[in-house]
């Protein structure tokens, strides 16, 4: 019995069946370890609203590959936003960079496309766009709207600034010679500088067209003008007519500038015409001060160098001038008036770049030593408009470049015309000083007595006898006319008078010869005259 029982206890040995639970355990441990190993990062993304987000359902995608799932959606501590906690795949770890962007993709009907239609059925998802910064970030702020351009797209991102919002809005096209080369990504208004900021992106390879000299202008809508040649309508592409757009280009006659870095700020002009008025970008300010009248000199007046426009008058710095005089203790109004002028090197065929300004400044400094002076000239005698002329006056008193506030100054000179005007002014002053008032008073009294004389003359004229004078005069004249008519050539009186006159004439002729004889021989009247023989003609040998 004992032996048999020993056999039974043999069954207590370790059974092979234990392999099954061990296998299960190993598999279980493997699963757990695998799970832990593949445990992806947990990130928090803050949104403005939880629109489209559903915990446990909303996916995070990158290039349409599922990268994770939103685990939890909750309000933030301040209740002004939503924080979505998402679990990502381990693979996504290297994509979580400083500037990685997230945004919700939903169906969106845009200006030129409709996107995200697939989300109508599947629900919104979170799109991820890895940046290029450092990895290891777990808190992100989602974008309000999808970025127009992927972060790694080749091209150039620029900023346009303008002082008023035009019809350009986010999503509009950026055109170069009418061809779409980019788009407006965002539009923001900054209260700090009171400017509208547009962020635009220009796709490669067109970003090479952008250089320091290009100008951006609003090419939205239709520009219409009527002139002698009829109506003229200018438009961009159909898209820009409907939705607006931004064009850029180098203005005619302007040389290409330097290449620009990303996020360079440009000014957005309201039209191309505005650029044509002001085609240069770089310029520098100078101050010129004049003691003469600045009447007729208005902002925008040209600044010319020997007749070539090199800039314009920016403004008359009356306020600054006064402030300056106050500090300097100059009293009265005799101080010169400072005028701010803006000189553009591009107008002198220099490249429209920053370095040209330096060149220009050097030239001005040298020029002042050589007698370069600014003067105010009459541009238009009819309107009295004036301009600033810069020229060389070798005989000018030596002067040097000064400083007014933060601006350099160019010494000024009064031109001959201005001097003449001054002389004329002084002459007029002398005239003014004459006792004109007394003269006029005397003249007035003289005129008064003249008036009286005239009045008495009038009473005389009004007298009955005076008025009858013409009638009597008429009668007299009639008698006179009759008398004259009786003396007409056919009349007897005339004939007899005529013959009388003829005989009188003869008598007078005789009298004349008598008087001659009498003058030769005063005794002829008494004595007979001595007869002289008649001259005999002779023939000369």
């Amino acid at each position, binding site marked *: 019995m004992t032996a048999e029982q020993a056999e039974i206890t043999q*069954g*207590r040995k370790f*059974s092979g*069946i234990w392999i099954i*639970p061990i296998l*299960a*355990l190993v598999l279980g441990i493997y699963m757990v370890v695998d799970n832990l190993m593949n445990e992806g990062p947990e990130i928090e993304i803050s949104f403005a609203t939880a629109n489209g987000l559903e915990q*446990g*359902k909303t996916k995070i995608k990158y290039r349409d590959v599922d990268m994770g799932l939103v685990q939890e959606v909750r309000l933030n501590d301040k209740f002004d936003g939503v924080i979505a906690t998402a679990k990502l795949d381990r693979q996504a770890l290297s994509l979580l960079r400083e500037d990685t962007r997230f945004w919700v993709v939903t169906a969106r009907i845009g200006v030129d496309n409709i996107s995200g239609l697939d989300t109508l*059925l599947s629900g919104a998802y979170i799109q991820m766009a890895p940046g290029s910064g450092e990895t290891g970030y777990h808190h992100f702020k989602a974008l309000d709207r999808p970025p127009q351009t992927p972060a790694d797209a080749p091209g150039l991102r620029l900023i346009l600034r303008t002082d008023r919002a035009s019809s350009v809005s986010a999503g509009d096209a950026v055109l170069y010679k009418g061809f779409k080369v980019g788009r407006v990504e965002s539009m923001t208004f900054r209260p700090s500088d009171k400017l509208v900021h547009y962020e635009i992106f220009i796709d490669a390879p067109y970003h090479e067209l952008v250089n320091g000299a290009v100008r951006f202008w609003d090419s939205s809508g239709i520009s219409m003008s009527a002139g002698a040649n009829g109506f003229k309508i200018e438009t961009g592409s159909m898209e820009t007519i409907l939705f607006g757009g931004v064009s850029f280009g180098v203005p005619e006659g302007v040389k290409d500038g330097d290449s620009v870095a990303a996020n360079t700020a440009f000014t957005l002009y309201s039209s191309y015409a505005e650029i044509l008025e002001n085609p240069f970008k770089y310029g520098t300010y100078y101050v010129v001060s004049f003691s003469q009248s600045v009447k007729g000199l208005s902002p925008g007046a040209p600044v010319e160098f020997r007749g070539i426009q090199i800039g314009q008058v920016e403004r008359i710095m009356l306020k600054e001038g006064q402030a300056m005089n106050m500090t300097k203790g100059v009293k009265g109004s005799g101080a010169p008036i400072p005028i701010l002028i803006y000189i553009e090197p591009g107008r002198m065929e220099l490249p429209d770049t920053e370095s040209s300004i330096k060149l220009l400044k050097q030239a001005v400094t040298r020029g002042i030593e050589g007698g370069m002076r600014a003067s105010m000239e009459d541009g238009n005698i009819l309107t009295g408009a004036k301009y600033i002329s810069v020229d060389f006056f070798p005989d000018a008193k030596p002067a040097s470049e000064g400083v007014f506030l933060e601006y350099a100054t160019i010494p000024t000179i009064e031109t001959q015309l201005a001097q003449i005007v001054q002389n004329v002014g002084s002459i007029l002053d002398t005239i003014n000083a004459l006792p004109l008032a007394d003269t006029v008073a005397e003249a007035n009294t003289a005129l008064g007595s003249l008036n009286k004389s005239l009045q008495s003359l009038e009473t005389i004229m009004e007298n009955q006898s005076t008025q009858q004078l013409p009638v009597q005069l008429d009668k007299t004249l009639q008698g006179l006319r009759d008398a004259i008519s009786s003396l007409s050539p056919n009349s007897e009186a005339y004939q007899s008078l005529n013959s009388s006159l003829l005989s009188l004439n003869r008598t007078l002729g005789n009298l004349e010869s008598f008087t001659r004889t009498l003058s030769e021989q005063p005794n002829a009247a008494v004595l007979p005259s001595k007869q002289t023989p008649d001259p005999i003609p002779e023939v000369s040998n």
Partner: protein
Amino acid sequence: MTATAASRHLASCRICYKLADANLHKCPRCKAALHLRKLDSIQRTLALLITSCLLYIPANLYPIMITDQLGTSEGSTILGGVIILIHHDAVPIALVIFLFSVLVPLGKLMTLFYLVWTVKRHSPVSPRQRTVMYQITEFIGKWSMVDVFVVAILVALVHLGGVLSIRPGVAALCFAGLVVITMIAAERFDPRLIWDEMEEKDRDS
């Protein structure tokens, strides 16, 4: 007490049920191995029970069914499904699923553990009651497969391409394994052992 086959050292062939002397080691009729009791019954049952326990964890934690609906796939665990059903006011169905998919496997495992534990020890529960427990366990065990069947049928039927399709999850496999292994464990357990203890006691007394 009447003498048992075991006390007379007689073993029943597990294949053809012929009663033969256990010392023969082989069934004189069908030549199958002859054992007085099921070989390593306790050990094997215990091992399988532990395996089942291990499977019970993923079976409940992982989704049993993955629903792909218009691009979004959503996994649902057994308990998650029960909760969803309750939310949809389908309490009876939720109860059935909870009973057969959660409570029954758990109860079965615990019952078997208890039976194995009490084979060689004194138990306040009488052998008869324990035998009834064993019978219930064995009977009810196969019904736990309801869940697996539901998943299997849904997977086979609901396959509408991208619009709606259902895939079995990891838990389905684990759950099926759990049920099968628990059934084998129950089968491996030799209920005669429950009574052996009592007989030994009788003999001792």
